[in-house]
């Protein structure tokens, strides 16, 4: 399973070649957002106001990094639990968001929205935060600085290691992986 490389922004052709279980190295610009920022974005949409970031073709990484030490670009920066964003995600996918990076499962509504709108869900390794930080080459707050670690950051990444968890063909690595290894523990 050798990884394939993808550059953001993602195009439909990129999404179409991704299958659950595929290892991917992502490069380019991605945005960060957690629950608090999602809530603000969705509130703006409901008020009919413009968003502070352009989501078309983009990826949102669910992360609240630790503070950078002097000389560091960013602190440790592993994924947070994606399920907390589920209630907000379909609205962002409808706006053209093409990918999300987090950890843990998504709900049925998010999965359906991904299939209908050509978007994928990637997982990064939860807790591999110091390793992931090494693939981040630039970091800048672009919205909601008052949220601290939860502000929206613009990151430039180089070969950020992720796996496709949900593809647009109904593939679900959580389901398939668990089915495959259930009762295979022999010691």
């Amino acid at each position, binding site marked *: 399973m050798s990884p394939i490389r993808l550059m953001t922004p993602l195009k439909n052709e990129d999404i179409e070649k991704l299958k659950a279980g595929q290892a991917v190295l992502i490069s380019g610009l991605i945005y960060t957002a957690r629950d608090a920022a999602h809530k603000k974005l969705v509130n703006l949409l409901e008020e009919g106001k413009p968003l502070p970031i352009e989501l078309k073709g983009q990826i949102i990484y669910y992360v*609240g990094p*630790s503070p950078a030490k002097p000389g560091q670009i960013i*602190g440790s920066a592993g994924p*947070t639990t994606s399920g907390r964003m589920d209630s907000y995600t379909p609205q962002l996918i409808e706006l053209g968001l093409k990918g999300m990076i987090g950890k843990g499962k998504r709900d049925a509504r998010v999965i359906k929205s991904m299939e209908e709108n050509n978007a994928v869900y990637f997982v990064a390794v*939860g*807790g*591999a935060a110091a390793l992931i930080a090494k693939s981040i080459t630039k970091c800048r707050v672009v919205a909601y600085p008052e949220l601290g*670690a939860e502000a929206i950051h613009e990151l430039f990444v180089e070969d950020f290691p992720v796996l496709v968890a949900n593809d647009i063909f109904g593939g679900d690595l959580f389901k398939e992986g*668990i089915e495959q290894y*259930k009762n295979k523990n022999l010691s």
Partner: protein
Amino acid sequence: MQVIGGGTIKTISTDKIISEVAKLCADSNYYLGKDVVEALEKGRKKEISPVGINIFDQIIENAGIAAKNHVPICQDTGVAVVFLELGQDLKIEGGDLYEAINQGVRRGYQEGYLRKSIVNHPFLRVNTGDNTPAVIHLKMVAGENLKIIVAPKGGGSENMSAIKMLKPSAGIEGVKEFVIETIVNAGADPCPPIIVGIGIGGNFEKCALLAKEALLREVGKPNIIPDIALLEKDLLNNINSLGIGPQGLGGIVTALGVNIEIFPCHIASLPVAVNINCHAARHKEIIL
């Protein structure tokens, strides 16, 4: 030392406690314990899923990078959970012990570049900005030492923990069923491979505390009571047969270890608590 009526009393200053707590906060977040690293290496060898093996490799490499660069293993540097074992013959000088612990946490999280993840109120949710207050558990013990354990706990794994008051008739099978149910329900969210702390007995709050204390024991070191050690082994096997695997993406290593602590309980009760820890199982201690 302070001389009182011919005898001497050992004293410790709150300044000393503050600086030690600050150091423990940073160290526990940067340096994964040897037992956990070894358990990860063992898990890596055992795992058969290629995706799972790749995840193990990343986790092990990550722990190495964190230690080498003195940076947090995980960005969620947690609630600072502090266990104190205070010798009854020891005197603390210079102020309030709890305030000293919180001051140490404040300093440790600030100077150690750790993330501040505590909000002031369950509903108002304003970040306190310095990761205080810590959750402090104080135990009085014989002697004149102060043992301080700092165990930062992330939200992902803490959120998937659970407690249940079983009927005594549920017995060992009932306990097993509840543990498995909790692990299945947790799935990928607590960042498997996990370490499972279980408290059985006591009452409602005692068994929750036992579960947390169980996580302080070395991974892979069995309970000294043979039938409890056997239950640990059984549960570990059952959990690893669920197929959840590293990060919930399938595999045969969902847990690195199961640690159980027990306590006597009421004739009518069988409390059981499951406190899940992620692979970033962090704690460091010092005896003053």
